[in-house]
């Protein structure tokens, strides 16, 4: 809901009682013009605000953690302390809890996902950025795809090709006749719906949250007019937009946690099919 978006939605003069309908925000607030474009082969890469933010995040994560862990001390202080909290949260709270003893090997993988997703989400409430990078559907799809092409090969490697599909499609403890129904369902649920929901869950949460904040922000601007109802409505919308921003901060962290936790759960399932 930057000024450009508001202008795009109806113009600066568009207010209540100015003969202008409410410019409800739509999909256009998620679309940005190219800053530059780059053609490699026959593929055109569009550099937009979102891609710039994504690479700023990548740089920020690398800069902070390489700085924080450059010369770690036995007694941590400053940046190392903060970085260590993040590391232990991923290692103990997600990797060891979900995967178990051999979870330590996946800490870098899960750690990268958590902070990349969290900061991507967080861009939604950073002034001037104000667009969650993960509300661009291709980004969560890319992340979920990486998780998918990680846990499936792990499963095949650890259980063998036949064992992997047998464990996946024929869960034990079910009457044999039921497999006729169950196997296709399990196939659909584990190999198709699982990666799709993994991506859509993150995308939809960020998309919806951003749309809500945008709607109330635009409403606060639209209702700002010379009438009691308009002023009251504007104040109420403004308050709701602020409250939603706080709420979004929570959702952003939560969705990053859920995304990472699910990645860990899928990997754990591939490593230990009996669970």
């Amino acid at each position, binding site marked *: 809901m930057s000024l450009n978006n508001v202008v795009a939605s109806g113009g600066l003069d568009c207010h209540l009682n100015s003969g202008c309908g409410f410019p409800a925000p*739509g*999909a*256009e607030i*998620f*679309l940005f013009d190219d800053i530059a474009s780059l053609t490699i082969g026959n*593929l*055109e*890469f*569009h550099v937009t605000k979102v*891609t710039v933010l*994504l*690479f700023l*995040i*990548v740089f920020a*994560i*690398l800069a902070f*953690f*390489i700085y*924080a*862990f*450059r*010369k*770690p*001390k*036995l007694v941590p202080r400053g940046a*190392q302390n903060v*970085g*260590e909290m993040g*590391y*232990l949260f991923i290692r103990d709270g997600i990797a060891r809890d979900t995967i178990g003893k051999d979870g*330590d090997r996946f*800490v*870098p*993988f899960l*750690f*990268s*996902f958590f*902070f*990349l997703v969290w900061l991507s989400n967080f861009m939604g409430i950073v002034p001037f950025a104000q667009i969650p990078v993960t509300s*661009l*559907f*291709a*980004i*969560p*799809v*890319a*992340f979920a*795809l*990486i998780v998918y092409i990680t846990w499936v090969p792990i499963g095949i490697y650890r259980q063998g090709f036949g064992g992997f599909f047998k464990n996946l499609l024929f869960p034990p403890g079910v009457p044999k006749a039921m497999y006729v129904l169950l196997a296709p369902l399990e196939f659909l649920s584990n190999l198709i719906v699982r990666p799709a929901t993994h991506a*859509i*869950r993150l995308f*939809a*949460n960020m*998309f*919806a949250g951003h*749309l809500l904040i945008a709607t109330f922000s635009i409403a606060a601007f639209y209702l700002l007019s010379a009438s009691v109802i308009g002023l009251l409505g504007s104040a109420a919308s403004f308050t709701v937009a602020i409250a939603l921003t706080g709420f979004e901060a929570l959702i952003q962290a939560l969705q990053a946690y859920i995304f990472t936790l699910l990645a860990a759960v899928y990997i754990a399932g591939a490593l230990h099919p009996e669970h």
Partner: protein
Amino acid sequence: MINVIAAASAAVAASGAEGEEMPSVLAVPIDELIIGIIAFLIVFGGLAKFALPNIKRTLAERADAIEGGIERAAKAEAEAKDLAEQYRAQLAAAREEASAIRTQAQADRSAIIEEARSEARAAAQQVTAQADAQLSADRSQATSQLTRQIGEMSVTLAGKIVGQSLTDDARVRQTVEDFIADLERQAEGTSQGSAQQ
């Protein structure tokens, strides 16, 4: 979530209906997908190579340090226990030694007392024997002196009674000496009798 997607689709449809052709928010352009994958790979590669191994090593070292501390404490405790055991053993040995010394001292004391007693007894016997000897010597001296005096007094008495001086007369002297010898014999007989008693 499904509602959200529906709302999103509706929003897209609505904006599309306004006339302007807009790409769907659910579209996945291949270039954005590749950018997303590259972004993750950079973060993953950078962290896995330059940041996380350091902190992993440090955490392992810290765990080691803490476990090492516990180990050292356990070792020190065992050492202290050993030392205490050693002290206790030494103390017991010392106590035993003290008791042995005490027993020895007691034995020594009775031996010394016995010795002193026997010495004292011997000394007393010696003193008694000397006293006895002195006594018997004194007695015999007194007896002989007494005998002689009695003799002289008897002579004197007899002279006074007879009225004549017999002092220088050799015959009388012989008589007196015989008499005294006779007395001495008698006295010896009595003293031997008393010694035998």
